[in-house]
């Protein structure tokens, strides 16, 4: 049983990764958009009076790209299946729908790794940012952990989107707020105090902190633990909500409505 789930996860993740890599929209979201946003951040920082670390901005913009890829992937996951007429087949398959959906959301966040690579290379080539990381091994660990936890956050979103036909509207809405509330480019200390507790519940906050610690010196372990813990929490909540929302969608006969 476990072997079947692991195989489904592996094959599904690979399939969706290759499939999404061929989409021009995903190339835009995961490479061009972060490069544009990092360029804006670099130019704004150059004219600024504060001593902003450009490497931090590059990493933040890269993480913004991971979030965008995850968000639009998760928002689109259910919608695509609906449009292609495969949602009912997948829900009706013997494997739990969670096992089918998880590889897709993980693949979308994995695709976001292009974002980090793109913003770092772009920053290095055009803005001469020194790519010196204090703890490269911690960084090498922090990146996949962040990607997985974002993929699990995407799963949580996708599970709620099964009920709504216009889920992509929420995707459009949630991009900037999460960039802001997780302190990817703007320090949380500048935002109203009530944003900070919200940021604690969002794994990109801890992922960014872990990546920062790894890049600039310090210990990333506590942040990595929080990131992973939140990811597992999202998975547990998703398992419950997905089952309930799937049942509701069957009851209301809204599963395949486009």
């Amino acid at each position: 049983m476990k072997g079947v789930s692991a195989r489904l996860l592996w094959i599904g993740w690979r399939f969706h990764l290759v499939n999404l890599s061929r989409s021009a929209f995903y190339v835009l979201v995961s490479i061009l958009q972060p490069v544009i946003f990092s360029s804006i951040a670099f130019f704004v920082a150059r004219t600024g009076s504060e001593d902003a670390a450009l490497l931090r901005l590059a990493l933040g913009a890269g993480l913004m790209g991971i979030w965008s890829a995850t968000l639009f992937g998760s928002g689109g996951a259910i919608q695509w299946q609906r449009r292609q007429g495969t949602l009912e087949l997948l829900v009706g398959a013997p494997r739990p729908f969670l096992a089918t959906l998880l590889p897709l959301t993980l693949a979308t966040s994995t695709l976001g790794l292009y974002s980090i690579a793109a913003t770092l290379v772009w920053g290095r080539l055009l803005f001469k940012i020194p790519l010196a990381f204090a703890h490269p091994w911690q960084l090498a660990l922090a990146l996949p952990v962040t990607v997985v936890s974002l993929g699990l956050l995407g799963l949580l979103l996708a599970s709620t989107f099964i009920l709504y036909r216009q889920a992509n509207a929420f995707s459009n809405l949630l991009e900037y707020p999460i960039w802001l509330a997780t302190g990817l480019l703007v320090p949380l200390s500048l935002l109203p105090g009530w944003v900070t507790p919200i940021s604690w519940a969002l794994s990109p906050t801890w992922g960014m902190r872990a990546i920062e610690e790894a890049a600039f010196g310090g210990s990333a372990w506590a942040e990595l633990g929080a990131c992973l813990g939140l990811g597992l929490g999202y998975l547990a909540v998703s398992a419950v909500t997905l089952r309930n929302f799937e049942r509701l969608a069957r009851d209301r006969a809204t599963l395949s409505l486009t």
Partner: protein
Amino acid sequence: MTVSLRVFLVGGAISYRALFNWIRPGMYAATMLGSPLFQILFFTYLGRATGSRDDNFFVVGNAVQVAAMSGIYGMTMGIANERQYGTLHALLGTPANRLAIFAGRSLPYIANGLVVSAFGFATAWLLLGFRVEAGAVLPLVVAVSVTTCSCVALGLLIGSIGLRARDVFFGANLVYFLMLLVCGVNVANEDLPGWLAAIGRSLPLTHGIEAARAAVDGAALGALAGPLATEASIGLAYAAVAFCLFRWFEREGRRTGSLERS
């Protein structure tokens, strides 16, 4: 004349209702109001974090730029969705005046862009302490109106390309994001490398934002004539190219039987 006017007004309104995918209230609020609001907040806070320019610079730049969301995405949908939904051949089979069909579509998106921009300024007033003198309101409205029209012209161009190209929304997204960088929205034109600044100056929005910032700083309407005339000229040029492309794709589509080819 009356028929063309009806095609212009009624046809424009019907096409807006039929082809604008974001017209449902929930979708509209989230995409056309929520997203611009957070865009304005994000870049204003980025400016604060880096100690760059003052809040007004980012508020005005982004509150004007969000009108382009309606102009570019909406207008692209308003033209290119005819092909997506399989109605293009029926539309082009009618004897209706093409200019009336084409121009009528832009009117709802201009109104829409103005609403979104006004919402952006209002929320910036509420949340970010943005203030504007009473005397600056009229010049600002004129600047935003001219800019919205020129952004719609750019949307017409992308939409016309969508009558032929397969993935036009890739182009629409790319242009929208590039505008954030090169059109003086968040980075002043003089702070960009020469080649990026040149691209920005040849696009709609750049000169309109310049006029809007001058208006907020207290410039009289007459003083905005230069940038606004440039903005309007750029818009007209894009609209003219868009209409020529529309007619050319129509002729080629008929000749080669490729109107609805995907």
